[in-house]
């Protein structure tokens, strides 16, 4: 067991913190939010140049063959800077699905485009009222036709879909068992897309598919493996999300630690009051335990599915709650300024709330972990 980073990991983290810290402030965040996509296209290109978009891609496909720990380290830095780029949806989620379909020559090409920064891909899986951790249930259907498949159904809150060129869509294959994963161009005829912003400035779409015609090659992963691959991809996304949460919490604590030393009331810094000190201590404990739980999830990331998902849900439970503790405490010590869009803490608060609710929320992960304990 070794918590220390290798030279290469240290370099990765160093380059990430250097690039991202240039633009980790309220002005930048507010500016990006007013963009069409919610992030800076030029910086996405820099991500590609630095190799970040090729990080988890296997060497055989021209990637860096990075481990899940590498992905976590980079995402800690992304979280610290509240980066709104679609890294998790494109690189972690879609990237994983595509590399699982590498017998398909076209999937390799797509991975290359993704790594080069020219193609972004979003997952369209969640449906209204469906349990986010139950990947086998989907109301979207794909029926075979002479020319391939015809897809119909409705997805909601496809994260980062507005800036994606392609979508990965989960659908039940008519006349077959299981859930298939399809690649669907975002501009395909028959798609009706309603896009909106989330409270953290990222974007999402509700998408209705009406008799969308797809070629046979659109089926990336067949019904025999679709659910398993989707589960793996979502679990990896959860790990990256937790890493972002850890980065965000540690950064938020720094911001708050500085604020309580600078803000004066009754003629003294509010950080001299024990009531404030204990709030800050609680936040430190929460963020520290959150990082510990990220390690637990990482240590179990390549275990069998039951062990992996139990560890992951336990981690989501601790980290989700810690994120709320840290950011709510942060708002409290900022007083009224915490509620303005002009102070960083409110941005961390919104991001951490988004993370807590994506790919399963606190209650759902708590239930899944409880079931793993008692059956």
């Amino acid at each position, binding site marked *: *067991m*070794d*918590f*220390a*980073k*290798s*030279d*290469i*990991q*240290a370099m990765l983290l160093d380059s990430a913190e250097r690039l991202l810290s240039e633009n980790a402030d309220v002005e930048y965040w507010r500016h990006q939010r007013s963009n069409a996509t919610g992030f800076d296209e030029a910086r996405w290109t820099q991500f590609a140049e630095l190799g970040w978009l090729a990080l988890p891609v296997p060497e055989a496909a021209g990637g860096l063959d990075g*481990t899940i*720990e*590498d992905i976590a*380290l980079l995402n800690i830095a992304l979280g610290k800077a509240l980066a709104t780029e679609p890294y998790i949806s494109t690189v972690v989620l879609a990237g994983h699905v595509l590399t699982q379909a590498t017998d398909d020559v076209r999937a390799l090409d797509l991975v290359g485009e993704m790594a080069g920064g020219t193609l972004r891909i979003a997952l369209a899986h969640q449906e209204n009222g469906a349990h986010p951790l139950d990947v086998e249930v989907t109301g979207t259907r794909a029926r075979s036709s002479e020319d391939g498949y015809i897809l119909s159904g409705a997805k909601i809150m496809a994260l980062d879909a507005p800036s994606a060129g392609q979508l990965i869509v989960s659908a039940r294959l008519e006349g077959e068992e299981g859930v298939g994963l399809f690649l669907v161009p975002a501009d395909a005829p028959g798609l009706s897309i309603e896009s909106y912003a989330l409270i953290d400035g990222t974007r999402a779409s509700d998408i209705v598919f009406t008799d969308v015609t797809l070629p046979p090659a659109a089926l990336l992963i067949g019904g025999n493996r679709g659910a398993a691959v989707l589960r793996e991809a979502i679990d990896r996304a959860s790990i990256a999300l937790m890493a972002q949460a850890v980065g965000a919490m*540690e950064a938020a*604590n720094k911001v708050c*630690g500085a604020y*309580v*030393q600078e803000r004066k009331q009754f003629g003294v810094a509010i*950080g*001299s009051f*024990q009531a*404030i*000190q*204990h709030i*800050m*201590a*609680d936040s*430190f*404990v929460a963020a*520290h*335990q*959150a*990082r*510990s*739980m990220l*390690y*637990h999830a*990482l*240590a179990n990331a390549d275990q069998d599915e039951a062990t992996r998902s139990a*560890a992951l849900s*336990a*981690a989501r*439970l*601790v980290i989700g*709650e810690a994120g709320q503790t840290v950011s709510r405490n942060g708002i409290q010590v900022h007083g009224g300024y915490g509620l303005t869009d002009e102070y960083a803490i409110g941005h961390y608060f919104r991001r951490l709330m988004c993370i807590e609710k994506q790919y399963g929320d606190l*209650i759902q992960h*708590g*239930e899944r*972990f*409880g079931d793993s*304990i*008692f059956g």
Partner: protein
Amino acid sequence: MDIGITVQTAGADPMELRLDPDLQTFRTEVRAFIDSVLPADMKERQRRKVANNAAVPDLLEWMRILNAHGRSVPHWPVEFGGCGWTPMQLFIFNEELYKADAPEFDWGGTHMLGPVLYTYGSDYLKDRFLPMIREGATMWAQGFSEPGSGSDLASLRTSAELVGDKYIVNGQKIWTSGAAHADWGFFLVRTDRNVKPQRGISFLIIKMDTPGVTVRQIPQINGEAHLCEVFLDNVEVPADQLIGEPGMGWTYAKFLLEHERTTSSFIYWSKRELARAKDIALGEMVGGRRVADDPAFRARFAKAEADLLALEWSVLRVLAHEEFDAPEAAAASVLKIRGSELQQEITMLQVDALGAKALRFFDVAPALPPAPTDVWADYAPGRTTVALINRAATIYGGSKQIQKNILAKLAFGL
């Protein structure tokens, strides 16, 4: 030194969070060892005891058994009888001891006084006392707190005045665990009133049957009387029983706490007790349903187990001296805060899983509680006894509030 967890600032090897496979072999070996040497009747008494603390005869006998195999003080340096194990091996050995319901160490001797003695003690004191601790010959009491000096320990007033080759000790200690059964004690005493409070404190070993030492057991809310008051009235103590230098007692006491940075997490104890809480939740029925199937209980249990996993990883991070952007002592305070909160939450899960049945009083005096029946399973006696006294977990060893003060200072400079 190979400590079982690699510590380095940078290098060729990437972060590796999986356990070294050799440790599994070690675990198998120590589990078999404990199984072969722990007497069945002793194990049964430990598993079913009502009291929070192990009975003294079992505790000392277990030390003697471990010592016969060279494993009673595995964490000490090899020259004093330690095993030369890595921190991870020690972690696993301790975990297996608790899992097997072995009696606990006499922590005062093995984990508190021992390291201070072999680090700062004279050869005379080392030769005299280290073997006694290692062999389980004596029980030790720790005399730190006083009626007026709890969280503000440095204000302690028990005085030791050097007269010839003796110290004359006068004062009063309180919360001295097990003093009634201890043969020896180690005390913080004031040897100099004319300097800064922390500077005038010394670390003194006192034999408990010395004339002038009076012990009063304090009846506790859980039926035990483990905590004591110790009155010291003109107690004559040979001057060579002062450890290290006069006036350095505060430094040694701080060393002792830092040396045992992970002990306050109670991680091994809490893991075993959470497993027992699970047994209770699976065994008890309410309205035809297992307590474990009550969604509210299950959610609370899941949170406690997840929090305990986080605590375990935080312990491993401290053992590995992981680099992070706050002083290491901040991580130790996290262990103390979360460790004590979890002890309380886990014992209350046990109590709450038993529901109203948890209200039955069980006497701590008999070696074994009443035999189990269909109504009163063998996990019932003792749960409430332990839960009641566990309110102390967030008070002793630096209260939760003191720990938060420390954290605010260390982590944020407040």
